[in-house]
């Protein structure tokens, strides 16, 4: 309905100024009622007054239009005033019906707002024009079919303006209901070829929409569009269409957009338009907004279609013009263009890095936002930290929720700085006190809702954050009863997934809340419950809480509200203990030596401590940063110190490295004042030089900038640094010059091959890669061997061949396979024995081989010596030893060191002349070992003078250096007899070499947390590292991964797949051993074995 009213507008001129038809558009006559209405409204000062006036006006109008005496003339005027009220946003629907009545009264002017159909069929040009204009307005979908044929007719109208409006009306229909105009597509083509430019231009709107939908259907029109554009650009259009002497700029833009859509991902179609695009770029040279509009569209098209290097170059130059323009609009569009093309051409961002940096702090938010958008698009693994620092949170809710998501997803793998900084931010707040409280209250509420959900698992770090916030700020949520919070915390304490670490956080939070509440049942209950806890820590906390609760005043002083940021004065020198120390000294106690001093004394024979991070020595393959994370072995205490979060320490180091060139705000000591950090930071010049490198490498504009580097002010330098950190890793050759630096910084786990790959790829894949490489090691290092084992378990051995001629030898000395000590012989033997086995192929592991003399000795014996079946014979194995024997039966054992398990081959030999029945072999359950499959085996019958054979696969369940696997064998001869025996198994039986690359070693090393260090003396016989290592290799079956200088790294695994890594370093006759393994007992066990073999050899 309001449409109708709006249409009535067209009728207005005649109503208002019929007396002065020739006066042209002018001021209204002062006498006009509308004029006075408008005047009085403009004179008003408040909205309220306006409302009052209009209500009055409407009331009087209502009366007037309903009155039958109102003349037509008066009615017209009323209508105008009504329309004006309507436009001001007041309800005047009562007038609609009168408007229609008026419209039906039949003279030419009123009829314009009458029925459309009638108008459309009119022969009057103006009427048709008006009708078409109305149709092109918001038009009800249901009415389209009714008027469509009429409009189609108008496409053939002789007047171009009618054809044109008809096309535009059809365009409107297309937008509303594309299906209904489908059948007239060929008419659009006709319109495109219309001899009038206006009609053609109007048809472009439709084509743009249709091509957006489906570009493939209109490829054949490309040439036409190109032709049209060529003519437009060439100035073939009538001069009427020039705008500031640019020929039909909007038409050009429209055509460029269409071409862009058509040429996208289509080399052949793109080929057609290269020329005209080039010409467009060339022609648009006048310094006027409209030419820039064309240029901008041109650039977009060039980057959208199949690329042509020549054009791209020109387009890039053009973007440069935009970016460097002093006009803010053009600069903005330049940035916008950069955002679009940055993924295709990261070098462009490098060229304009200084502009981008400047725009980061631009007062216009839209420019700032666009700049952030650019940064977002160039984000890669190397600069993500710096870029994210430039972003900001829109509001509190968003911030807390995002952090919640980060904590739940990141979980305990999060860098510890993240929760710490988050809490610090909450605690320190901003300048605005009110804002701080809002943020904190929001956090408290958010966490309370999260904790309300029963049985939801949250990562420990997230829990700790929530608990801390609740403890610190729960009182801000005044409507929440502290008792509820305490109950929540209490129930958390009882959850099994909560670690003792987190429990300590909970107790601290409870204590804080307790200091602010008078008395609480939950606290009493909690104290009672945990005062008798088995966990000493919890008991301690409970007692503390209990005592504090008894003295509320002390408690309040001790735990002031929101004081987490206040400085606590700590007497770090512990001067209050001086008296105690003096007393101790006077009683003859030794003066205290700090830890490091003791260390130094212990290592005093060493001339110089090597504090070089150990990874540097193989910098070529393993990035050093990973290992720098840990201190050098000599810097740490001897013996085993397990550190739960050592893997995190590794991460931490790399992160700090990543921030090179960024002002360091937080140090170990807390906030570093600006000046200090500038003065004393060794890595700043590096970062600056890194910036120069970048700047020097890119082309002209910024190269000249870098020449002036020396004369730059401090601020400029800072910007340069920022630039170098932001644009790190962009461009094809960007990475190379900086590789050493950046790579260390972020991609410590990256494989060599990946480095090249990621430097060239776009950031999306880059991030993926770095993600993958970060999480990679976890997956890599826990190879799942179970399936393999199962596969092997089922391979049954064929019956052992009978070798009765051979003799048993029962020399106990052979039980441990160390009888052969000559390395030469060893090598030879292992060569001949081990060749078919991959695992042992290149590691000279000592394998037992009965010496010829032993064989001769044992030849005297009478009973048969069992020998291994052929397929086992080829595997490394021990000597066959006797476990037990009686008159009737002897039991022999041979250990076979298979790749995936220890195989015990047991031979039951019947010494009697008659068969033995029901021979039962049973292993007892042993603490340290696990027998795969069943621990028992039954030989139903063993023929006279023959040997039967069975195999058992064993794993070590609990680590020990040596353990006993007891068992018994029972048989039936004249009477039932039973023999007991025991098998001695050493840790070494379960150790296998683990092959890996140096890189994998580096990764794995960082992911392992249990370490043991020990220095052992080297014997003069093997004072070289390689000699010592080969001893370890032979005796302990370790795999030598790499030897560099005086350092070596070795790897082995405990079956089935527990890795243990060893780092060795020699210095002045000492061998520093450093083990790491996911299993805490394994390094100790191996260390013991190492010491043993090193002493023996």
């Amino acid at each position, binding site marked *: 309905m309001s449409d109708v009213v709006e249409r009535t507008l067209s009728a207005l001129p005649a109503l208002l100024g019929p007396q002065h038809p020739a006066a042209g558009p002018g001021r209204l006559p002062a006498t006009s009622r509308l004029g006075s209405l*408008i005047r009085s409204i403009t004179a008003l000062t408040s909205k309220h007054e306006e409302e009052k006036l209009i209500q009055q006006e409407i009331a009087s109008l209502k009366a007037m239009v309903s009155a039958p005496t109102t003349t037509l003339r008066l009615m017209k005027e009323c209508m105008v005033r009504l329309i004006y009220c309507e436009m001001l946003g007041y309800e005047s629907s009562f007038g609609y019906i009168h408007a229609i009545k008026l419209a039906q009264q039949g003279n030419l002017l009123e009829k314009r707002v009458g029925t459309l159909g009638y108008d459309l069929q009119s022969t009057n040009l103006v009427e048709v024009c008006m009708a078409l204009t109305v149709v092109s307005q918001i038009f009800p979908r249901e009415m389209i079919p009714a008027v469509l044929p009429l409009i189609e007719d108008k496409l053939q109208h002789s007047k171009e303006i009618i054809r044109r409006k008809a096309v*535009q009306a059809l365009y409107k229909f297309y937008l509303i209901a594309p299906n209904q105009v489908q059948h007239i597509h060929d008419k659009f083509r006709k319109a495109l070829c219309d001899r009038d430019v*206006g009609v053609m231009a109007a048809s472009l709107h439709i084509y743009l929409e249709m091509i957006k939908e489906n570009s493939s259907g209109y490829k054949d029109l490309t040439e036409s569009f190109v032709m049209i554009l060529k003519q437009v650009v060439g100035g073939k259009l009538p001069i009427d269409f020039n705008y500031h002497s640019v020929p039909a*700029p909007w*038409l050009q833009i429209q055509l460029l957009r269409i071409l862009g859509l058509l040429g996208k991902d289509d080399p052949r179609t793109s080929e057609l338009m290269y020329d005209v695009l080039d010409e467009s770029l060339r022609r648009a040279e006048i310094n006027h907004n409209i030419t820039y509009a064309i240029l*901008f569209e041109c650039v977009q098209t060039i980057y959208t279609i199949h690329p042509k290097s020549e054009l791209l170059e020109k387009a890039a130059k053009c973007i440069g013009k935009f970016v460097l323009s002093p006009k803010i609009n053009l600069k903005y*569009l330049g940035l916008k263009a950069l955002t679009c093309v940055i993924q295709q051409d990261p070098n462009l961002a490098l060229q304009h890095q200084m502009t981008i940096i400047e725009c980061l702090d631009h007062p*216009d938010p839209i420019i700032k936002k666009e700049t952030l958008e650019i940064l977002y698009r160039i984000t890669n693994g190397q600069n993500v930290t710096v870029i994210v620092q430039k972003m900001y949170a829109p509001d509190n809710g968003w911030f807390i929720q995002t952090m919640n998501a980060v904590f739940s997803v990141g979980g305990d793998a999060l860098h510890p700085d993240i929760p710490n900084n988050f809490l610090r931010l909450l605690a320190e707040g901003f300048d605005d006190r009110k804002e701080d409280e809002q943020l904190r209250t929001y956090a408290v509420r958010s966490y309370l809702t999260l904790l309300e959900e029963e049985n939801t698992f949250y990562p420990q770090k997230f829990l700790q954050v929530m608990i801390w916030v609740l403890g610190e700020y729960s009182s801000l949520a005044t409507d929440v009863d502290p008792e509820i919070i305490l109950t929540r915390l209490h129930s958390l304490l009882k959850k099994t997934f909560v670690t003792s670490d987190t429990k300590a956080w909970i107790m601290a939070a409870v204590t804080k809340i307790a200091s602010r509440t008078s008395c609480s049942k939950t606290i009493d209950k909690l104290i009672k419950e945990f005062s008798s806890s088995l966990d000493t820590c919890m008991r301690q906390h409970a007692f503390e809480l209990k005592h504090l609760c008894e003295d509320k005043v002390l408690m309040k002083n001790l735990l002031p509200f929101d004081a987490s940021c206040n400085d606590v004065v700590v007497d770090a020198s512990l001067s209050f203990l001086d008296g105690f120390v003096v007393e101790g000294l006077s009683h003859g106690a030794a003066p205290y030596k700090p830890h490091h001093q003791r260390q130094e004394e212990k290592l005093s024979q060493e001339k110089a401590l090597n504090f070089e991070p150990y990874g540097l020595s193989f910098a070529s393959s393993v990035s050093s940063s990973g290992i720098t994370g840990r201190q050098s072995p000599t810097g740490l205490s001897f013996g085993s110190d397990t550190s739960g979060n050592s893997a995190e320490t590794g991460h931490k180091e790399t992160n700090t490295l990543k921030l090179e060139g960024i002002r360091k705000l937080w140090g170990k000591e807390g906030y570093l004042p600006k000046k200090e950090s500038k003065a004393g930071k060794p890595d700043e010049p590096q970062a600056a030089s890194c910036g120069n490198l970048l700047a020097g490498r890119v082309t002209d504009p910024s190269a000249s900038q870098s020449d002036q580097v020396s004369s730059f002010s401090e601020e400029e330098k800072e910007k340069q640094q920022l630039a170098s950190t932001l644009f790190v890793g962009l461009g094809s050759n960007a990475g190379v010059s900086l590789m050493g630096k950046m790579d260390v910084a972020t991609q410590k786990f990256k494989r060599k091959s990946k480095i090249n790959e990621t430097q060239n790829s776009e950031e999306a894949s880059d991030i993926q890669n770095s993600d993958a490489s970060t999480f990679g090691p976890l997956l890599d290092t826990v190879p799942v061997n179970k399936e393999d084992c199962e596969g092997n378990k089922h391979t049954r051995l064929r019956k052992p061949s009978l070798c009765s001629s051979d003799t048993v030898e029962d020399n106990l000395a052979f039980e441990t396979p160390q009888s052969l000590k000559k390395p030469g012989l060893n090598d030879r033997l292992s060569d001949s024995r081990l060749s078919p086995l991959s695992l042992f192929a290149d590691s000279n592991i000592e394998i037992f081989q009965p010496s010829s003399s032993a064989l001769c000795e044992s030849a005297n014996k009478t009973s048969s010596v069992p020998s291994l079946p052929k397929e086992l014979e080829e595997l490394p194995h021990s000597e066959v030893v006797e476990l037990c024997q009686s008159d009737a039966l002897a039991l022999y054992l041979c250990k076979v060191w298979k790749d995936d398990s220890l195989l015990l081959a047991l031979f039951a030999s019947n010494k009697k002349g008659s068969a033995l029945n029901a021979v039962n072999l049973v292993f007892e359950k042993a603490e340290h070992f696990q027998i795969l499959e069943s621990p028992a085996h039954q030989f139903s019958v063993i023929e006279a003078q023959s040997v039967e054979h069975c195999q058992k696969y064993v794993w070590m369940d609990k680590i020990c250096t040596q353990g006993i696997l007891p068992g018994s064998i029972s048989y039936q001869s004249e009477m039932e007899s039973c023999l007991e025996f025991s098998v001695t198994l050493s840790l070494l039986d379960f150790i296998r070499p683990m092959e890996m690359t140096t890189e994998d070693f580096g990764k794995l090393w960082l992911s392992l947390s249990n370490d043991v260090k020990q220095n052992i003396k080297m014997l003069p016989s093997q004072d070289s590292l390689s000699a010592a290592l080969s001893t370890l290799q032979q005796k302990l079956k370790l795999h030598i991964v790499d030897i560099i200088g005086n350092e070596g790294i070795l790897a082995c695994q405990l079956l089935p797949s527990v890795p243990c890594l060893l780092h060795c370093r020699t210095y002045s006759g000492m061998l520093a051993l450093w083990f790491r393994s996911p299993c805490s007992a394994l390094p100790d066990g191996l260390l013991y074995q190492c010491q043993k073999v090193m002493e023996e050899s």
Partner: protein
Amino acid sequence: IRFILIQNRAGKTRLAKWYMQFDDDEKQKLIEEVHAVVTVRDAKHTNFVEFRNFKIIYRRYAGLYFCICVDVTDNNLAYLEAIHNFVEVLNEYFHNVCELDLVFNFYKVYTVVDEMFLAGEIRETSQTKVLKQLLMLQSLE
């Protein structure tokens, strides 16, 4: 084009042309919002501002803000110049246009808009043609 708005600095609407379906409340809200985002901007700022899912291209002539709301993918400068083209036509038509011309002859301004923009697109950019058409319409009245 989603809509065209002409407002003065105080936020009084001098012209509103909608090319999208909104109900009246929504229109009123849009008008207020546009006024809020546009008037706070400095002369040194760009002539573009993001607005909901669209962007507004605006240009200030004396005390009047001419705002065109377009899709984000549209060419900013093209519409900025379209505004200028429109103002040039108004200037020609009203012989040195001022705010009062738009107040008292709002119906004529609508006619100009309809001549130059149609169905949410730029229709006619040739100033001579627009003026010719306008004079022709005027002669009928």
